[in-house]
């Protein structure tokens, strides 16, 4: 009876907390978008003028068109790159493919703002390294590439986003029962017929959901539109919201109206996505014993696929990393030359480390990253235990509520939280605590996914064995559940700490001088035109990320075994 009570208590507590994190900002955003006056000012009334202003602006339709164009372009290009790599690594005998699996994931650890900056440094018509080199080589009049265009934006976004497609499509290739394809072969169809009639139709739901999730990510993206789109005068929703708040005076109402529109688009996408993936699970066929993936012998073509994979790796990793490293060691930005090489210096690093705000930013980013990852994983482990292991009514509601923030673009969450903490009498606006709450809200869905997945794998009998052996509920949780949960917990923790450290789109609306984080600092330095300093800061950020991921892995492995 007491155990039941403690379960109920956890459930009710978790529901209230999650409601506060995910529900309150939503309500406040809707509320704010229909108020006539800025937050805090007296005499505000309910109105639709913000929406009228937003929708009857001719610019709105360019905005919508740009956003959709950008979303579609991004998702098509990431899909091509990611699926190609997944196919090469899962289903072909391309040499060295195992190395590519690891290397293709490197862009994931590079913060979006750095990857965007590196592509500007490579493809800007004025200072882009590639442009300068190609122009000299071919004796061209003008620069051949222009990053400040829709295609430039799509390229910069896609070359950074494709690892997600790679992971999802690899899983789809791997999880397909190969006997379905073998059955087609034994039925007399050629490899090509098998691909068209069996492989492709079976992969279609997975492919569609991957395309959809990338479209949503493209529409929500902030770094590339802010750094490339704004100077190129190509506006999308996220930058429009950002500018509405950053102009003077801020137009919170208009930002709210745009944010609600963006939220509606991404929520629709997420709902469709959820529908498809649920159907996909039902689509899954009964499979027999474990099967090895069917590997296609490419013959001589395997060197072609090897070359293509290497080209992608070169474009996605080597070039951006090189340009970041190179620029971080030179006094002014320029093409690598003997002259510049002789001037290589640590001055940029020296400057960054002595920059008054740098220490604060490093500390804030580190605390926020570690703190939000730990808190999210603890919270979601508990929620996952309730939703997976108990039969309490209301657990499905809790599960769904935890997922709400996945539909909230970072910039929308930022706008909502401004409304919340300027309205509610909780004095944390402008402090690091509001960022912490924002991060927890934003990353909760990732945490719950990792936690439930590993919780489901823990057989109920393993816990019951501990209980029958005389262990209390708490001992069982600590000695049995937690160690078994550790691999999933660590994986989730690493993922969240990484995306927390590079978070920009939410922080940029919520930070103040004292709560500056690294990505904001990079953004400000870039806006100030201090390219070489940004690159030095970027290199340090990436090193910090690698160190954190490495330590977490080590620690996780030790705890998992030690207990």
């Amino acid at each position, binding site marked *: 009876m007491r155990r039941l009570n403690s379960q109920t208590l956890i459930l009710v507590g978790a529901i209230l907390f999650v409601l506060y994190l995910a529900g309150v900002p939503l309500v406040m955003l809707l509320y704010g978008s229909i108020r006539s006056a800025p937050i805090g000012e007296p005499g505000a009334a309910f109105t639709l003028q913000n929406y009228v202003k937003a929708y009857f602006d001719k610019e709105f339709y360019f905005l919508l068109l740009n956003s959709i164009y950008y979303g579609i372009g991004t998702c098509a290009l990431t899909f091509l790159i990611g699926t190609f790599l997944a196919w090469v690594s899962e289903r072909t005998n391309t040499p060295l493919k195992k190395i590519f699996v690891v290397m293709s994931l490197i862009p994931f650890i590079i913060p979006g703002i750095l990857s965007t900056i590196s592509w500007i440094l490579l493809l800007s018509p004025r200072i882009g390294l590639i442009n300068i080199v190609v122009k000299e080589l071919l004796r061209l009049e003008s620069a051949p590439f222009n990053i400040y265009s829709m295609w430039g934006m799509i390229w910069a976004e896609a070359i950074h986003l494709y690892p997600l497609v790679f992971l999802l499509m690899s899983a789809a290739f791997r999880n397909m029962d190969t006997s379905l394809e*073998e059955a087609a*072969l*034994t*039925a007399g*169809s050629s490899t090509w017929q098998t691909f068209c*009639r069996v492989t492709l139709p079976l992969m279609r739901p997975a492919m569609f959901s991957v395309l959809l999730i990338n479209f949503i990510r493209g529409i929500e993206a902030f770094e590339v539109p802010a750094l490339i789109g704004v100077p190129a005068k190509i506006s999308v929703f996220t930058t429009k919201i950002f500018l509405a708040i950053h102009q003077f005076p801020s137009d919170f109402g208009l930002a709210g109206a745009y944010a609600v529109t963006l939220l509606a688009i991404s929520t629709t996408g997420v709902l469709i996505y959820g529908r498809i993936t649920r159907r996909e699970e039902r689509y899954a*066929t*009964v499979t*027999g014993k474990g099967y090895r993936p069917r590997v296609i012998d490419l013959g001589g073509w395997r060197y072609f696929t090897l070359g293509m994979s290497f080209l992608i790796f070169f474009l996605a990793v080597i070039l951006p990393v090189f340009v970041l490293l190179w620029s971080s060691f030179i006094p002014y930005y320029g093409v690598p030359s003997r002259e510049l090489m002789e001037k290589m210096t640590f001055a940029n690093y020296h400057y960054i480390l002595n920059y008054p705000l740098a220490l604060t930013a490093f500390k804030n980013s580190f605390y926020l990253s570690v703190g939000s990852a730990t808190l999210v994983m603890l919270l979601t482990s508990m929620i996952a235990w309730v939703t997976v292991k108990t039969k309490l009514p209301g657990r499905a509601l809790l599960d769904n509520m935890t997922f709400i923030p996945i539909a909230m673009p970072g910039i929308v969450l930022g706008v909502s939280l401004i409304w919340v903490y300027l309205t509610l009498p909780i004095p944390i606006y402008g402090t690091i605590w509001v960022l912490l709450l924002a991060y927890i809200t934003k990353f909760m869905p990732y945490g719950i996914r990792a936690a439930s997945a590993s919780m489901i794998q823990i057989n109920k009998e393993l816990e019951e064995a501990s209980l029958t052996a005389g262990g209390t509920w708490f001992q069982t949780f600590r000695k049995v559940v937690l160690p078994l949960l550790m691999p999933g917990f660590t994986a989730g923790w690493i993922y969240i700490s990484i995306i927390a450290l590079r978070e920009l789109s939410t922080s940029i609306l919520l930070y103040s001088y004292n709560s500056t984080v690294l990505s904001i600092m990079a953004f400000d330095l870039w806006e100030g035109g201090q390219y070489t300093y940004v690159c030095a800061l970027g290199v340090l950020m990436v090193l910090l990320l690698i160190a954190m991921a490495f330590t977490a892995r080590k620690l996780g492995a030790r705890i998992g075994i030690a207990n």
Partner: protein
Amino acid sequence: MAEKRDMVQIEALEKYFGEDKERVHVLKGVSLNIPEGSLYTFLGPSGCGKTTTLRCVAGLERPDGGRISIAGQTVFASGERVYVPTNKRPIGMVFQSYAIWPHMTVAENVAYPLTIQRRPKAEIKQRVVDVLKIVGLDGLEDRPAPKLSGGQQQRVAFARALINEPKVMLLDEPLSNLDARLRVQMRSEIKALQRRISITTIFVTHDQSEALAISDQIAVMHGGVLIEVGSPHQLYTRPKRRFTATFLGLTNLIEGKVLEVDGDGRPGKIQTKRGVLSFIPSTTLKKDQQAVISIRPENIPLHKEKPQGVDNVLEGTVKEAIFMGDAYQCKVAVGDDLLAVHTHPFISVNPGDKVYLHLDPASCNGLPADDRQGIDDSMLGD
């Protein structure tokens, strides 16, 4: 009538899995011939290479050596670099998971082999109706594939494998995903179907009772090696190899050394710990060779009093007697050996009884003690 030709011929088949250090030798020179129209079973414990052999016949695995021919056509020969791809081989295959495509209806699944050949629509339709009738699924043409029960899915898989009138049917453990009762039912249906259309069929299973019930011929495999081929009756009553004797059904083995034997199949004598016993050699044995006698529990009559005038009588004590309805399953201690004996249920036996076992020489199969030639010791767990 002319002797039936061999539909499938496999010669010295070699296959390795994995690379470099993790390389595993899974087929070690397997050779066998499968007569036209027979139901031929590959039987063995998991990891013995039976499925791999089947997949080599299908062309889903590429062997590392040897030769395979189907209906007189060489489909694989390592020396001549011949390799006919799966889709060009005259085969139909039923997979363990059935591999019914979930994005198609029953009719679309079954019609597939004809559809990709672009046969006329009317012909396809007629063939689908015919073949669904054969497997007893008529009327379910438009049912989406995921809405089928396990037994129905299997029938669809059969129909799909049959529709193209292949020369050889390949069945990869097709019954293992069904529940016990359905398994027995489908077993006799497969047998009846195979008889009716007299199609050469290769059936892979690890279930010995399934193999005994269904096969014309069984190839027993172990550790990547073909152990023995024979009819179910032959293999059960007169196994030539120790592995066959122990893997098919339950048996007692008594070790010893051959004292006298001739080549005419007449009884020989063997020196064991329990004295000199008579046996029938089921394969060639030489004098002084280490050998075992294999005798099945149901072939050992149990007597309360010592039978007179017969050879091969052992004295023992009942250690365990479990009443199973159709028999008592006894464990009888003879010296430090424990023999399994199944007796008629009307003879009541109790633990502690002193009994006499009559090992009728006609039921005592003499086998070489060691059939490990060519088999890794590690793979022979017994």
